[in-house]
């Protein structure tokens, strides 16, 4: 027999840790999407510098959408904080060992790079703003006139996108008391999941908002500037296919990383093996196998493969499934991770 009776009964800790609810998964999910969109946007800029068809890359239209999404993520994070009025304290220090401190400072760079990247297309995509703030149009012209600057901006997008994507996993990875998270694979897994969610989000908009001239109003212009590709004709079909191909690659890598994560946990200490059973056969198994793996990865892989081979028409369904799976991955990992504990030696 091994029985522990404790008189401790602190809210959010007992009977099991439950400090993070929906806010942190939402924040990690939106951060992952923005990371994915930044990498895709950066790659698109580099390809356009090479002379590829500008209409082919929806992802260069997404910096403003990324800016909006990351702000929604920050609102979710703020809602989670229990001492909200002191949030500015993260910017009065730099704590080198704290992923959250790194994330807070990297976020400032992300804001800057997203806004600069938005300038790239802003005058055409949001004419209302360009007419009222001619400075923006001039800045955009100046940016486009300097290929070196555009290249630097493209690489900044890629580098920061990778950094943010990894950060969303490493944030959990460093908690010594939560064995489910104690695997460095969390970083690349969340990055690739973010890339796949980013590709799905961009792909979704190509299907929902086909290309057309930018609306001249304020609000319509703003919304269109976030997502809508330009031009009187819809972009070539190769665009959608390119995103689908990229997404298939991301999903396949994500599947491999999930397998590696489980292998890593099951071959580690008893605490980590017990933590892994939370998601493989425990209370989170249905969400993990059913939503994250089957609906979020395997089904979209199948549907997108069939789309590419022209057996079924293009629909929004695979992209929606990828987004649902991306959120579910974060939700499962955040919740199951909090339920995982270091086992006492005598309990084995």
């Amino acid at each position, binding site marked *: 027999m091994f029985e522990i009776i404790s008189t401790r009964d602190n809210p959010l800790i007992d009977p099991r840790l439950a400090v993070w609810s929906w806010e942190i998964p939402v924040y990690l999910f939106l951060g992952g999407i923005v990371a994915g969109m930044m990498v895709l946007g950066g790659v698109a800029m580099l390809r356009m510098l090479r002379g590829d068809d500008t209409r082919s890359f929806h992802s260069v239209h997404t910096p403003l959408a990324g800016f909006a999404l990351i702000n929604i993520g920050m609102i979710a994070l703020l809602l989670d904080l*229990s*001492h909200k009025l002191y949030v500015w304290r*993260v910017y009065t220090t730099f704590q080198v060992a704290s992923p959250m401190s790194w994330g807070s400072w990297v976020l400032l760079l992300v804001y800057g790079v997203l806004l600069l990247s938005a300038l790239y297309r802003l005058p055409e995509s949001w004419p209302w703003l360009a007419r009222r703030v001619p400075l923006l149009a001039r800045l955009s012209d100046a940016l486009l006139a300097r290929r070196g600057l555009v290249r630097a901006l493209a690489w900044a997008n890629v580098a920061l996108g990778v950094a943010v994507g990894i950060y969303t996993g490493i944030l959990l990875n460093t908690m010594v008391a*939560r064995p489910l998270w104690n695997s460095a694979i969390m970083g690349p897994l969340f990055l690739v999941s973010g890339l796949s969610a980013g590709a799905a989000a961009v792909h979704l908009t190509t299907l929902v908002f086909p290309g057309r001239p930018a609306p001249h109003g304020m609000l319509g212009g703003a919304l269109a500037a976030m997502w809508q590709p330009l031009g009187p004709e819809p972009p070539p079909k190769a665009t959608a296919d390119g995103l689908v191909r990229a997404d298939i690659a991301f999903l396949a890598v994500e599947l491999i990383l999930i397998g590696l994560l489980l292998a890593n946990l099951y071959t580690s200490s008893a605490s980590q093996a017990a933590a892994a059973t939370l998601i493989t056969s425990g209370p989170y198994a249905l969400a993990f196998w059913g939503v994250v793996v089957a609906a979020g990865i395997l089904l979209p892989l199948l549907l997108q493969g069939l789309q590419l081979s022209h057996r079924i028409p293009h629909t929004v369904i695979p992209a929606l499934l990828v987004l649902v799976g991306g959120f579910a991955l974060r939700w499962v990992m955040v919740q199951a991770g909090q339920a995982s504990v270091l086992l006492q030696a005598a309990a084995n």
Partner: protein
Amino acid sequence: MPRFGMVIDTRKCVGCMDCVVACKTENDVPDGYCRDWIVSELRGGFPTLTLEIRSERCNHCDNPPCVSCCPTGASHVEDFGRTVQVTANKCIGCKACITACPYGARYVHPEGYVDKCTFCMHRVKEGLDPACVSVCPTHCMYFGDLDDPGSRVNELLRTRRWHTLLPEAGTRPRIYYLT
């Protein structure tokens, strides 16, 4: 500079919870929360049962994961006594430290910041023992400087068998349980 630690004799502890009540009173711990608590651990099968009763709290670890994950430096190691403390007006309430602590020693105070055992530094600086230690009716708790070879805590650690909680977490906890 001292490095404070605590030694608790589980052969003397009867689990009366005086330490818990003393802490709540001394530190004005809000209703429904506690900075220290009693754990009874039963092992074995009849007739070879063993029972260990422990008074648990923040371990003021030498390698505190709550400090390394804190984004603002609110959780920090104080110079005097090398204890782990929280500066309430630097804490943003992100709760990373609560997640990182393997001992469940931290909680969100109703005012929003994260709170935990301070080793009663306000008392120790005046030369007193922490409240829990000072009220223990069986005198099973000892508080002192782990860096002083002549201290009572070091004498006990030299002469008695002891264990710490979850040493495999690598936190190097500074509360020792005599067995």
